[in-house]
């Protein structure tokens, strides 16, 4: 019991202290760090999602098994899934709050502004790439998440371990939907191009490993979205 209490204190006390001492949402740095941590969390989820999806290209049965596990395991369904959804909501609400605050910090704009001379387009337009990814998430939830919730928890259909592959492939019959997926992942790649390395800078990591983190981030930003695009095109052109 004592150990549990100690662990709970170790986890929650710093949070409570940040919250009371400097105000979790009243301090620019705390807001940034919260944004970065939720971003890193979403990046790790994205990698998991990618690895599972990629099995659909290789083996139908493996994809079905993994999907069934993810869709029925109570720990994933009732603990990880709500955390993930909260993470997504937090990341985009905070992103919009920061954007509004940052716009207020310069009320009179420059007549001549050349941002491309000192910074990249993607780093200055995270709100644009982020909003496109958010719109994509709406489509993605409509396509997969809501039907899945209805299937399992509204209609109480019996467990079917072989349905996942067919359901997914069916979605990629439409060229319009496949096209929207491709475009969204290009925008996600741009978001990650800046977001990956930026999140490490924000949590205070800027040392001899920083060049490696930058390269890792650029690689991740290209490979993972390109992989998702490959999966969508593969099922559109080859499986269907």
């Amino acid at each position, binding site marked *: 019991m004592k150990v549990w209490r100690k662990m709970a204190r170790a986890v929650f006390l*710093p949070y409570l*202290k*940040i919250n009371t*001492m*400097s105000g979790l949402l*009243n*301090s*620019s*740095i*705390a*807001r*940034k*760090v919260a944004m970065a941590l939720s971003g890193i969390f979403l990046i790790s989820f994205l990698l998991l999602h990618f690895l599972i999806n990629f099995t659909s290209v290789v083996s139908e049965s493996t994809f079905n098994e993994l999907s069934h596990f993810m869709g029925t395991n109570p720990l994933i369904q009732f603990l990880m899934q709500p955390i993930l959804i909260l993470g997504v909501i937090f990341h985009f609400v905070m992103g919009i709050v*920061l954007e509004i*605050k*940052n716009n*207020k*910090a*310069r*009320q*009179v*704009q*420059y*007549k*001549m*502004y*050349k*941002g491309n*001379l*000192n*910074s*990249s387009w993607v*780093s*200055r337009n*995270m709100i644009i790439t982020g909003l496109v990814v958010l719109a994509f998430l709406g489509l993605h939830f409509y396509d997969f998440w809501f039907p899945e919730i209805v299937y399992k928890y509204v209609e109480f259909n019996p467990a079917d371990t072989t349905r996942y592959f067919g359901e997914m492939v069916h979605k990629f019959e439409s060229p319009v939907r496949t096209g929207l997926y491709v475009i969204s992942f290009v925008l996600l790649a741009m978001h990650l191009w*800046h977001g990956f*390395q*930026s999140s490490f*800078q*924000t*949590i*205070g*990591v*800027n040392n001899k490993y920083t060049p490696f983190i930058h390269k890792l981030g650029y690689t991740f930003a290209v490979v993972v979205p390109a992989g998702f695009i490959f999966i969508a095109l593969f099922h559109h052109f080859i499986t269907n």
Partner: protein
Amino acid sequence: MNLKLKIWRQKDANSKGQIVDYNITDVSPDMSFLEMLDVLNESLVEKGEEPVEFDHDCREGICGTCSLQINGEPHGPDRGVTTCQLHMRKFKDGDTIYIEPFRAKAFPVIKDLIVDRSAFDRIQQAGGYVSVNTSGNTIDANAIPINKHDADEAFDAATCIGCGACVAACKNASAMLFTSAKVSQFALLPQGQVEATERVLNMVKQMDLEGFGNCTNTGACEIECPKGISLKNIARMNREYLAASLKG
């Protein structure tokens, strides 16, 4: 060389300003940018017009007084220099040059190209100091051994002249590069440890109160900084801030 200048003119803090066009002829490429403005002002005074007000002091790149957003960049197109060190040879005959004040809610325009940067002073006053007993028993700073690497990094941070180019360049008008330099110059030295916790908390609090934006790591500040202050300082300030918050 002959140039077309598009200069922001604003009567006072409460007036609405506008861009006014001026033609200037026979500009020597060896002039500094401020000397070019001096020449313009002389001609304006001769014509009986109000000269363009702009900030300047040392004119050798160390005081941080001169500002100006020149063709969309703080301190103009050259790198690692202040406006007083910018030379007209960086421009071509016939160029159009936009000259605007640094823009940020926390840097209100006082007149023409002059902005009030006292927000930086207040951030500095909130914690950018060490309390040293000067009663006669002061220990010589050199008597405390300091690792060369830390001393160098502290010195690099201390070269910040507080000109505000970081704020002017940042799309969010964030003052994090300035504040982080002022935090870092003490955070790396033993003399700075006594007040380390309150320093970072108070300086960040003041920075937020002044209405600067939040850093989104675009890196524009580091590129435009006339002293080349590194983004490393922002990461250090974030670490210091989180550690200080946990210590409470």
